């Protein structure tokens, strides 16, 4: 920061004026700065181009639908008097992601802590490798597995939940179909994002300064006490970062969800009931058969997802930057 950025105190006397320090960078330093800036800028340019492309493609549909694009629940852009809006699709997309996060984040924190703090050293290596391996499994496999095997079991869980806790609006079910639901999709997506979230959190937890951990243990803390007092506060950035990464993937998940859900175009709270929706799945399913308005509408839908993801990520990086592990602050 140049010295001139300082607030010059009022009433500076005589020659007591802050120097303006000239920054004299070496050529290597300058080249590096240039390269770093160029690559940083190119990322932004690509993102900008994507947004522009989407916006341009989405424009015709947005003009037809107007503000109701955000409030309508049905999706018939190519019909003669077609009306369409993203309310139901975005609603269910977010619900699936929230269910996934609700399940995956606590599990990921627990797994990461177990691997780092409790597992014996050799098991730790094996588990770390396993988690990374799981993270590499394509989501298609999770979707197939969810549809072919896990779906029935989860439908059973859903039935039990709605019979015993149906008074909770979310657990209410009209009719008797418990498969292909938001809940089933959320659970499968939770399993899908669990490895990457665990992996991110584990790496951050592992950076916790040993001196602080020993400080807690030397006071007589149990391992769990030490984790709570030192590792979790330090790892806050990792927990948030891992969760946001998981959220991003959950919001954008396409094929696994497309395999599991059967589409519905209403907004309600009944997550255990058959039927759900998802931006990614809908785009994948409708893209081939879409007419010109339909295509434009799908692009508008994509643009909406793009905006949601951007907001989520900005919010996350804001929080992460304010936590110790995120900012890399070392006392």
């Amino acid at each position: 920061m140049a010295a001139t950025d300082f607030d010059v105190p009022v009433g500076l006397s005589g020659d007591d004026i802050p120097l303006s320090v000239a920054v004299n960078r070496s050529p290597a330093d300058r080249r590096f700065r240039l390269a770093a800036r160029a690559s940083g800028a190119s990322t932004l340019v690509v993102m900008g181009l994507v947004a522009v492309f989407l916006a341009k493609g989405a424009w015709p549909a947005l003009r037809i639908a107007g503000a109701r694009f955000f409030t309508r629940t049905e999706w018939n852009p190519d019909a003669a008097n077609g009306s369409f809006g993203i309310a139901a699709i975005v609603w269910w997309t977010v619900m699936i992601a929230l269910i996934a996060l609700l399940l995956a984040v606590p599990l990921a924190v627990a797994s990461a802590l177990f691997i780092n703090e409790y597992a014996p050293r050799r098991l730790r290596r094996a588990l770390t490798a396993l988690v990374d391996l799981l993270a590499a499994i394509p989501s298609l496999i999770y979707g197939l597995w969810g549809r072919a095997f896990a779906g029935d079991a989860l439908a059973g869980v859903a039935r039990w939940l709605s019979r015993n806790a149906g008074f909770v609006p979310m657990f209410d079910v009209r009719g008797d179909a418990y498969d292909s639901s938001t809940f089933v999709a959320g659970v499968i997506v939770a399993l899908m994002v669990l490895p990457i979230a665990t992996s991110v959190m584990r790496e951050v937890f592992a950076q916790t300064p040993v001196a602080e951990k020993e400080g807690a243990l030397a006071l007589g803390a149990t391992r769990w006490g030490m984790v709570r007092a030192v590792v979790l506060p330090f790892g806050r950035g990792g927990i948030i970062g891992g969760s946001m990464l998981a959220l991003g993937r959950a919001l954008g998940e396409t094929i696994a969800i497309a395999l599991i859900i059967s589409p519905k175009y209403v907004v309600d709270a009944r997550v255990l009931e058959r039927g759900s929706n998802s931006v990614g799945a809908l785009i994948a399913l409708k893209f081939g058969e879409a007419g010109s308005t339909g295509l434009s509408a799908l692009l508008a839908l994509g643009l909406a997802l793009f905006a949601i993801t951007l907001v989520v990520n900005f919010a996350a990086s804001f929080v992460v930057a304010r936590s110790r592990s995120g900012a890399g602050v070392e006392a």
Partner: protein
Amino acid sequence: MTFRTLDRADTVPGSRSAPAPPRASASLEAQSVSAWFGSHKVLERVSLTMSAGGVTALIGPSGCGKSTFIRILNRMHELVPGAMLAGRVLLDGDDVYGDQVQATDTRRRIGMVFQKPNPFPTMTIRDNVLAGLKLTGQATSGRDALVEQSLQRAGLWNEVRNRLDSPGGALSGGQQQRLCIARALAVGPEVLLMDEPCSALDPTSTRRIEETIGEIARDVTVVIVTHNMQQAQRVSDQCAFFLAAEDEPGRIVEAGATAQIFDAPTDPRTADYVHGRFG
């Protein structure tokens, strides 16, 4: 064990009036302690008695096993993967490595101050002092009095009394180290281990900590590792000289009253070391 928990509650009185005096100091006796990191043996049959209420200084060149020894005393050694040990450590006559003894209990009774100050940086000064109580689930009534008393004993109260809610990481190095001492004292330990507590500090802070040691030594047994011969002479009444010959584990060459170790050592190597004639 139950009795211990009850005893300890006494150090945290329910009222805001003057806290009860800390519990009595305990003697610590290492019997034939050996230590390994993996297959590397770093300590060989070290025996040393650290009498209750005394200050014992451990001196010797780097790498001779002083830190390892001190970490064996409060069961921190076993936290290092691959670390092993042999021998016994008696705290008031009871082996801290006994079958019935929990490491967390031992660590609560034998506090530790590390070479590099390690307060919990984002916790407030007050919470740092109280951290041990929370971590060990002890009664936390009379907190304010305990915070004040502990900071007083560590010689930090006057400097921080008006900013108890600012983070511990915002203090200077010397203040952080005294905060760590206060944090260790707040749980009412019978022994306080200090591993080169002043090696990262300026002379003034060092002085303050030496004064603190002089004061707490009345009710806590102190074991301090130091490379500073003057410091050892100033603060300790007992001294043990550790030495590790090349490729050999560390041993105690000589131990005894500080005056004797410095003025009339029996081993020529001790004489060489305390007079600075050592590589």
